[in-house]
């Protein structure tokens, strides 16, 4: 088996002002999987992260769903959103040096024969801290060419928030 190097950064953005949305567009179709890494800071109000694809982002879109496992320091639980407008990942507030993180694996994103499944690990460090694992679904066979991480409740991701997109190519 001959190995070949992969795991390449595609794009990175750092917010210089608060924004409720971060979008990566024109994503190359040359990889097998994508990895979306986000470090969120300086949010003054709770942000509910929501991942959307290919501008399938209108409030009327119900092509997303997710199942979540979480622990909040006191108990573990699980919840689900179905027929919703984005793959959700809970976030709280973050201020000062605190950051909230998210790593999402977007698997086989160019496969036009299947719906797209995303597996996410996220957590936040705030007064309402919790750690999450999320299995998310976008019911579309379209290849993913753009990713938008929006704030479902409209609150901003703060200054200094970073997002990086990586691509992994299978042999």
């Amino acid at each position, binding site marked *: 088996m001959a190995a070949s*190097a992969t795991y390449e950064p595609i794009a990175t953005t750092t917010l210089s002002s608060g924004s409720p949305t971060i979008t990566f*567009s024109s994503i190359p179709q040359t990889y097998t999987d994508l990895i979306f890494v986000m470090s969120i800071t300086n949010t003054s109000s709770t942000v509910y992260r929501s991942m959307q694809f290919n501008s399938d982002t209108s409030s009327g879109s119900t092509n997303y769903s997710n*199942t979540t496992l979480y622990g909040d320091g006191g108990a*573990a639980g*699980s919840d*689900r959103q179905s027929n919703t407008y984005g793959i959700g990942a809970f976030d709280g507030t973050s201020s000062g040096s605190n950051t909230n993180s998210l790593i999402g694996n977007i698997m086989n994103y160019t496969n036009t024969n299947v719906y797209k499944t*995303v*597996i996410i690990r996220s957590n936040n460090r705030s007064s309402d801290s919790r750690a999450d694992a999320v299995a998310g*679904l976008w019911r579309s066979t379209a290849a993913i060419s753009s990713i938008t991480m929006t704030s479902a409740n409209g609150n901003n991701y703060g200054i200094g928030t970073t997002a990086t997109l990586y691509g992994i190519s299978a042999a």
Partner: protein
Amino acid sequence: MPILGVIASAITGNLVTTAYQSIATVTVGSGGQSDITFTSIPATFTHLQIRLTSLLSAVNNIYMQVGNSSIDTNANYAWHEVYGDGSNAAAGGASGQTFMKVNYQTSTSASYTSVAVIDILDYGSTSKYKTVRSLCGSDANGSGYVFLRSGLWQSTSVINTIKLYGQSGSFNQYTQAALYGIKGS
């Protein structure tokens, strides 16, 4: 609502890192197949990662076995898990098993995939048992599971072969398992 756009294709330059390398990939064809097996895995990496997108023909677990030259089918494995089913969180585990659990298929509908990112740590060590972890799950818009799973192979042998298979059923077309190696310094 402002949108911060990044044109990814505008990024230029040699950004390839070499610590993470693709070793082999299996994509299941139209006839399906009962298992996916990687053999002759090079011993030149520190850790392995399998990235699995599966379409199993049954609603059930996906198992993994490993071995040196041949798959170990004896009761040398253990697994543990914590999971959510959309309503409750729960945990489970078992020792003296003939497999490790690494994924779960929620739906057999043609378009619904289940995914797993499986890390196999220190697979070349001859002085310790091998530990595996998997972040896995699937959602089918009204049903679904998400898991944090760990596995143990009680052997000090180097791992150079890996087998994935369903608790029942077989892998349908478009199932893909990609094996990667991660180098240490």
